[in-house]
């Protein structure tokens, strides 16, 4: 069974970029343009993995991850935050919110794929 990933980013180009990399490797990729859409989709579908941006309108990625972690369905689901924010304070807040990994944009395709496979437990 393929791993079902939700990519959450307000940039359609970023969503398309991650989708093109991950779907070629056999992941099933869905997207959301903001935190509210992501939470709605997370209730409807069982995702195995989330890739989340920080700076999005209305709800930040931190807030989204916190809310995902508050729901029992999202407690153990791996989350990678990928952001342009590179400060230590951002990393700290990302990990405090519940992210498993914090990456700084731009992420090379091979690195995204490698880390996604490791965190998703795919060989």
């Amino acid at each position, binding site marked *: 069974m393929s791993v079902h990933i939700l990519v959450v980013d307000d*940039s*359609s*180009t*970023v969503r*398309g*970029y991650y989708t*093109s990399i991950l779907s070629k490797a056999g992941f099933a990729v869905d997207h959301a343009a903001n935190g509210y859409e992501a939470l709605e989709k997370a209730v409807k579908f069982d995702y195995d993995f989330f890739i989340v941006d*920080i*700076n*999005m*309108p*209305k709800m*930040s*990625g*931190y*807030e989204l991850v916190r809310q995902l972690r508050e729901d029992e369905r999202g407690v153990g689901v791996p989350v990678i935050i990928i952001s*342009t*924010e*590179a*400060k230590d*304070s*951002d990393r700290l*807040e990302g990990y405090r919110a519940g992210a498993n990994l914090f990456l700084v*944009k*731009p*992420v*090379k*395709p091979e690195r995204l794929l490698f880390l996604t496979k490791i965190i998703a437990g795919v060989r």
Partner: protein
Amino acid sequence: MKTSKVKKLMEILSTHPEERERRYAAMELSDFPREDVVEHLVNRLVEEKSRAVQEAIVSTLITIGTEAVVRRCAELLRSEDAYLRNSAIEVLQLLQHTSLGVVKELLQDPDPDVRLFAVNVLGELKVKEAVELLCRVVEEDEDVNVVAAAVEYLGEMGLRGDDRETVRKAAERFSDPFLEYAVEVALRKMEV
């Protein structure tokens, strides 16, 4: 009379224990587009713990819409609080013409995150000058994320031949797969 009312509203916004009262005070302050009010609203936006009150403050700042609002909100782009940063972007985007001058200054900021926020604001401004500024970012900015964001917005705006050439050249300045992808997508959108 007016001054005492403003003082009272600012005090309620700062100290009232009821969230609803603070929210109403924030909304009522939109009738007073003064610099001291703007200063107080932005300070409370930073300190306030209730999201509902924060949202009321943001709405009031947008309603006031002065140069002082734009300048104070631009400072919030450096905040460590993502909600404050995103609220600042929202205010700057909605106050299009008032914010253009400040956004231009932000494009020269040494912090690439601040320049990226400036690009995010420019991308939503429906003015010709925004296109010219985004093209300059694509040609001159040294940060790949800032350039990629400008490329994406230019693609969405649907552009002339010269702009297409500017976007095409961006991929040559950096060796980065994400930027190459962004350029490809933008050029495709420009052809439509």
